[in-house]
């Protein structure tokens, strides 16, 4: 194998496992990352001439471990680094995920920290996805790692009593990564990374119904990515998507996750959201959307997680079932200060108004267009705005 490709592959497959293992022994995430990047550099230098080792992961672990010991000696710090069985060292990624989502960590830093430590994404790319300056993002990450090291956040799995709440924060953070990758139709790769993280989480916590629910939710959304843009790059709303362009493999896997989750009889927000997407996906088989089911699911979702998105989603279902006036009344009941910058609210409002009041619809389309950062969506909304006048 080409040595550079081997390093790439090892980085992708083993980065999180190696960082998690090293950090769990030293409690110093930044030092573990530095040691590992040194090890990768060494691999790039030596593998082309010496050949790719039989077990690249074990080689990297040994090299990184040596770097950590050297660094600690230079600083005259004590090192507690056991000599691991490098072929079979424990997977500490779950601990690392839990630490990244620890309540003591700045909530704004949790998702970026996860992306960096578990997946090895650089601060520049994370900064772009979360729309903060690269310097600010680096500082945020550095502070979070210092906190882990200096505040004594334990590298242990939380006790069972904190399990649900802490796992929820982990899943939240993964969903945050997916959201950050969503806008771009060409996918900045974060959506894939989030799905990968959810796979890791659900394989590490196989009895979590919500981890499976989150995976199912993201797979359903991801399955439609190819259909969200027309051949000319134009935005295509869900109702007009060509269902033959939805990825069947992803839909199939999503359904499989969701039914496994359902058997655990432990419902939650992500499972309900996945079930809503599942109903939309059924259109590919039946040719029509079961709106009563969607409305019932949104009612249930609001019981679990009364987010703005859930209310706006339910208004869409109400509009389909009872007509725009009823749906608009629902939207009017939402607090004005919360909706003023919430783009989906204005897009849905415009869609509902289009049938009853063209001038007001035009205003709402304009507002929705002004709040989106996605050029294809903006063009779509302005096209609709043009139809209102």
């Amino acid at each position, binding site marked *: 194998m080409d040595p550079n490709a081997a390093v790439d592959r090892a980085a992708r497959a083993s980065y999180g496992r190696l960082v998690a293992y090293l950090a769990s022994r030293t409690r110093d995430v930044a030092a573990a990352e530095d040691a590992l990047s040194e090890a990768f550099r060494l691999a790039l230098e030596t593998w082309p001439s010496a050949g790719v080792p039989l077990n690249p992961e074990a080689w990297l672990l040994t090299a990184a471990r040596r770097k950590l010991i050297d660094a600690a000696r230079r600083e005259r710090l004590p090192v507690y680094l056991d000599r691991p069985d490098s072929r079979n060292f424990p997977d500490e990624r779950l601990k690392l995920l839990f630490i990244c989502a620890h309540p003591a960590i700045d909530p704004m830093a949790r998702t970026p920290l996860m992306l960096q430590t578990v997946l090895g994404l650089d601060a520049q790319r994370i900064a772009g996805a979360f729309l903060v300056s690269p310097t600010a993002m680096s500082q945020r990450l550095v502070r979070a790692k210092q906190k882990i090291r200096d505040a004594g956040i334990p590298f242990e799995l939380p006790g069972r009593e904190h399990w649900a709440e802490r796992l929820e924060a982990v899943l939240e953070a993964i969903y945050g990564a997916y959201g950050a990758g969503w806008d771009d139709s060409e996918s900045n790769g974060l959506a894939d990374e989030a799905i990968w993280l959810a796979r890791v989480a659900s394989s590490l916590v196989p009895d979590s119904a919500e981890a499976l629910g989150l995976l199912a939710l993201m797979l359903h959304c991801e399955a439609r990515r190819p259909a969200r843009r027309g051949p000319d790059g134009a935005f295509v709303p869900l109702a007009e998507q060509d269902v033959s362009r939805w990825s069947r493999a992803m839909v199939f896997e999503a359904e499989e996750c969701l039914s496994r989750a359902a058997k655990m009889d432990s419902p939650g927000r992500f499972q309900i959201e996945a079930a809503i997407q599942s109903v939309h996906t059924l259109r590919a088989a039946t040719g029509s959307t079961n709106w009563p089911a969607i409305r019932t699911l949104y009612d249930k979702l609001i019981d679990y997680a009364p987010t703005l998105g859930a209310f706006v989603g339910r208004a869409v279902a109400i509009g389909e079932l009872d007509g725009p006036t009823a749906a608009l009344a629902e939207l009017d009941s939402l607090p004005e200060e919360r909706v*003023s*910058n919430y783009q989906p609210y204005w897009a849905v409002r415009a869609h509902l108004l289009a049938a009853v009041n063209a001038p007001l619809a035009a205003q709402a389309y304009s507002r*929705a*267009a002004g709040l*989106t950062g996605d050029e294809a969506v903006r063009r779509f*909304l302005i096209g609709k*705005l043009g139809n209102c006048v």
Partner: protein
Amino acid sequence: MTYAMMFYETPEAMAERNSDKAPAYWAAWTSYIDSMGKAGVMKGGQGLQPPQMATTVRLKGSQRLVQDGPYADTKEQLGGFVTIDVENLDQALEWAARSPAASQGSVEVRPILPPPPAR
């Protein structure tokens, strides 16, 4: 904090102002500016005519040098600016990313310089 957002547009985007794409061009900007107004963050701002309409003046010794157009011909030209009042840079960047210029050109966001300290 108050930030200036400077919208840099490509020549192609700026040329849309006088083409059959003009309605979409203006609708995008109007929507964007209106949504900042409705959100109560906008303090002021202006659009600018294209760089061909610019005239540059500098003094070399006592001689005035007047030149047609901007000095350097860069790919992106300042098309306008807006000042907004928001809590922090993250919020300013969020608004900047929503501008039509962000998808074709770029948006520079800078904090406004506070008045110099009184003596």
